[in-house]
């Protein structure tokens, strides 16, 4: 795989000439089919981390026959290391709203809802004002669609789309069994498109700039650019929109502190890349996909502590519904502690990796399934740090 060279892209934050309501008008001049096929052709994959093709999601919802359909913006960003959606909602909320409106037109929805994580409540006042103004603009251009906002209450799991629906329906945020998928039966049992904040902005950008310009950036598997949240041991912590497909070595050259030992790509549920693998690891769907989190660790950091921190996070945020996740996360914490204290031999780490593999197969949702990523990558690459 050839790495793309680091290239800054300004599609989202510095897009000149893309007044959001004008972009919606542009979409309204197209047929619904043309809008959906443009998003499919662009190759845009969901920017929340899972990477499902956005256009296909829209197509499935469009093809459903129902009296009510919903467009939901998933703004329950809670992955440690990720803060891009907050920045997007703060700086360019209208572009998120225009993405929702374009989706609504494409699938035939009249109601949109932003599910905003409770930790971002400070954005509510500003967002509500923007939403009122935007809804008015939509009615002026003849699109029968209105957006409202719902506030979360501090549960990481509600970023999982079906747990988010449960929460909006007044229940514990526990994931549902799939199928049925949300495009068939989502919020209130109705066909629902649920997209991440950043994904919605890109749909509007694609309609505005055209498919070809979007496709010209990134790689075959990872089209376009991506907003990265960079944190940890870096002098350049913050938000950076970069072309997809660069390798970790080029990333570290730009963002590292000169002493970078590891990069956690994709937050606590992502993979930890050690220095020896920087060059061969591509950031994108052909390598390691990420919702945006890039945590940089220099040589002074204990990877045991890093792993322990991630595991505590998962154990606390597990919804507790399914046993592999509820019990597995607790056992992993105890397990690495036993090895660190010399109460279990280092071979026990291999048993723990097998436990994460079981969790991957048997857990109901992404939380329990993704623990294996950080666990096995840290234990494998920094095994000596796990042992007493």
């Amino acid at each position, binding site marked *: 795989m050839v790495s793309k060279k680091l290239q800054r892209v300004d599609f989202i934050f510095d897009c000149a000439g893309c007044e959001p309501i004008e972009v919606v008008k542009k979409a309204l001049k197209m047929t619904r089919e043309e809008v959906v096929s443009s998003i499919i052709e662009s190759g845009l994959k969901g920017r929340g981390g899972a990477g499902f093709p956005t256009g296909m999601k829209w197509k499935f919802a469009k093809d459903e026959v129902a009296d009510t359909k919903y467009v939901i913006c998933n703004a329950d*960003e*809670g*992955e*440690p*290391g*990720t*803060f891009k959606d*907050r920045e997007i909602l703060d700086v360019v909320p209208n572009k998120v709203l225009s993405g929702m409106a374009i989706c609504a037109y494409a699938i035939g929805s009249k109601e949109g809802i932003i599910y905003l*994580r*409770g*930790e*971002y*409540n*400070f954005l*509510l006042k500003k967002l509500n004002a923007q939403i009122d103004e935007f809804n008015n603009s939509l009615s002026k251009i003849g699109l029968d669609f209105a957006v409202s906002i*719902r*506030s*979360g*209450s*501090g*549960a*990481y799991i509600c970023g999982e789309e079906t747990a988010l629906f449960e*929460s*909006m*329906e*007044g*229940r*514990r*945020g526990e994931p549902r069994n799939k199928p049925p998928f949300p495009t068939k039966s989502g919020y*209130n049992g109705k066909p629902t498109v649920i997209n991440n904040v950043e994904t919605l902005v890109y749909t509007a950008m694609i309609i505005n700039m055209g498919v070809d310009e979007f496709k010209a950036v990134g790689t075959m598997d990872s089209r376009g650019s991506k907003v990265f*949240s*960079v*944190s*940890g*041991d870096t002098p350049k*912590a*913050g*938000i950076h929109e970069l072309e997809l497909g660069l390798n970790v070595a080029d990333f570290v050259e730009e963002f590292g502190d000169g002493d970078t030992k590891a990069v956690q790509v994709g937050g*606590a549920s992502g993979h930890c890349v050690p220095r020896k693998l920087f060059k061969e690891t591509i950031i994108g769907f052909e390598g390691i996909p990420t919702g945006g*989190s890039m*945590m940089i660790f220099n040589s002074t*950091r204990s990877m045991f502590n*890093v792993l322990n*921190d*991630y595991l505590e*996070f998962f154990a*606390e*945020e597990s*919804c507790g519904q399914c046993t592999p996740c509820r019990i597995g996360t607790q056992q992993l914490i105890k397990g690495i502690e036993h090895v660190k204290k010399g109460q279990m031999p280092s071979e026990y780490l291999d048993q723990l990796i097998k436990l994460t593999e079981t969790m991957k197969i048997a857990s109901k949702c992404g939380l329990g399934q993704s623990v294996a990523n950080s666990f096995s990558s840290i234990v494998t690459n920094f095994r000596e740090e796990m042992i007493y």
Partner: protein
Amino acid sequence: MADTEKLVEQLVSKHGKTRNSLLPVLQGVVQEEHFLSDTAMIAIAKALNLSSADVYGTASFYTFLETEPRGENIIRVCKTITCKMKGKQRVIEAIENHLKIKEGETSRNKKFTLLAANCLGWCHKGPVMLVNDDVYPHVDPDQIVNILDKYC
């Protein structure tokens, strides 16, 4: 009618008498009364035609829906990895020393409760803390007294 029941009635009429309104109603009570008392949860259950066990079961799931009495102002210090790397422990200690409480406790004058929180979404500006909905990025332990004084 007691104040709590009046509040619940107002919130239900604002958000609608459906199960979908449960979280906004619970959030509204927490905003006004700082926690969800048994009285509030029973009133909500009655108003939305749910069992009180159902209401408690939902409320207890969410971190921000406090079911134990809390102070007027809730301080949440991010304890996740990057904030830890940037010195969240010093921030917690500064708050503990100033308020004479430990993490998880409420000050004697009931003004503040100190809690540790999972990722607050400011990993590039750690350590970070929330006081109610107000964000304090790059918080310096030396600033703690001044910050908290604003809420007294």
